[in-house]
Structure formats: structure tokens, C-alpha cells
């Protein structure tokens, strides 16, 4: 898994590449949480365009981050999940809580 974090004002973009499983879930969780704690972030954008695989360990990190953002009355967005990844997200029901977009531009346009 590769990770790229970028902050634009109060929005944190987390761009993930590769496979998200138990091997990397902890690192992903910690990296995001560290940024959420030290910065004033009210929007969290999880970009999954380059994610080729996710399992329930990965889902756990995403749903956990959603809960964190909801607690602080922030918003979360999921971007660019390919069909095989999106299928797992839908299975978990996260799509009922978080809006899913095709690309980052679509969020900026809303």
C-alpha cells in the first residue's frame, strides 16, 4: 500500500494505492488519525482510485474514520472506488452513510 496525504484548507485528501488488508490497516488508521488530531480538518476525502483490493480489515479503517468525522460534525467522502472495491463498500452499508464520488473534481463541484 502507498499513501499520499494532502491538505487543502480544512480538507484532508487521503490517496491510497494498492491493497488494503490487515497487514496495512493499522498504518493507514494511524496515519490518518495523526493528521485528524493535529489539524483542524472538517472534510475527509478518501481517494480509492488506485486501490486494487480491500477486505473487512480495510473496511474497518474506513468506517472507523467515518465515525470519527461524524463525532466532530465533519464530513467524509469516498472517491473513485473501482467496481470490485465498491462492491465491498456497498456490502458493508457505508454507502448509506457516506457519499461516493467518481473523482475528486466531482466533490469540488458540489
Amino acid at each position, binding site marked *: 500500500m502507498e499513501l499520499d496525504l494532502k491538505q487543502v484548507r480544512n480538507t484532508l485528501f487521503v490517496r491510497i494505492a494498492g491493497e488494503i*488488508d490487515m497487514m496495512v490497516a493499522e498504518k493507514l488508521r494511524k496515519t490518518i488519525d495523526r493528521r485528524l488530531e493535529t489539524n483542524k480538518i472538517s472534510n475527509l476525502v478518501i481517494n480509492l482510485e488506485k486501490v486494487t483490493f480491500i477486505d*473487512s480489515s480495510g473496511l474497518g479503517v474506513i*468506517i*472507523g474514520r467515518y465515525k470519527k468525522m461524524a463525532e466532530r460534525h465533519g464530513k467524509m467522502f469516498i472517491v473513485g472506488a473501482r467496481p*470490485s472495491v465498491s462492491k465491498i463498500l456497498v456490502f458493508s452499508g457505508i454507502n448509506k452513510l457516506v457519499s461516493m464520488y467518481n473523482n475528486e473534481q466531482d466533490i469540488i463541484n458540489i
Partner: protein
Amino acid sequence: MNMKNYVRFEFPSLPENVSFARSCVGAFAAQLNCTLEEIEEIKLVVSEAVSNSIIHGYENRPHEKVVVMATILENQIMEIMIEDYGKGIADIEQAMEPSYSSDPARMGLGFSLMKSFMDEMDVCSEPGRGTSVKLKRCFQAKSRALA
């Protein structure tokens, strides 16, 4: 039903072996006449079951033995067995309930995913002796053409 091919593999309960195990079973499943989407589903269920053995069965101890056996039967049927010799499950019915997890940090979706992407799931476990999950999936011979 005759066995056409099988692979049995054994490896230690290291986190890096989860991805190794699912790629190998995925590569093996490619011998079937099935779609890439179906192979992705096979990789997912292997990932779930092997993660469970490491996380729950062995509580993240890294040098315990995990065994995966994948069998291709006649008629496009694939059976996968994932086995550990760890902690075991006291209440299998409860464990299989959607959203149940003994670990508050986890989702409790592993068994639900396995059940939903496979045609049959059979869990055998004994506390203190280990757990074995048997999964079965029947692929449509024409799935590639239909995809």
C-alpha cells in the same frame, strides 16, 4: 465427484502472508473457466479467513501454522479450506452473526462476506484446538462468455 487439481499450502501466521495466500489461491482459481470478478471474490474470502486465523485464532502471534487447501472438482466447483490450530471458537453461531466481533475494533463482517460470496460455508472449531473453515463455490461454465 472427482478431484481435478489441488494445492495445499502451509505458512506461518505472518501478516504479509495474507496477501501471499490470496494471490496464490487467485492464481490457482484462474485454472477454472471463471471471470476476473469471480477470482477477486475468491481472493476476498481467502483474505478474510486467513486474517481471522492470524488475528483471532493466533491473537497475532507470528509463527503459528496456517494451512490453506484449494481443490478444483469436476464441473467447475472449487473448494477452499482454511485451517488454524489456535484458540478456536466457543460459540460458532454467535461468531457467524453479521456484525458480531469479539474484537471491538473490528467490523464482524468476515463470515458474512465469506457466506455471501461463496455457495457453501462450513465452520468447524473447538476451543483450544483450532478452527477450520470450508468454503465451496460453483462457477458457471459459461461465465466468461456472459461477463
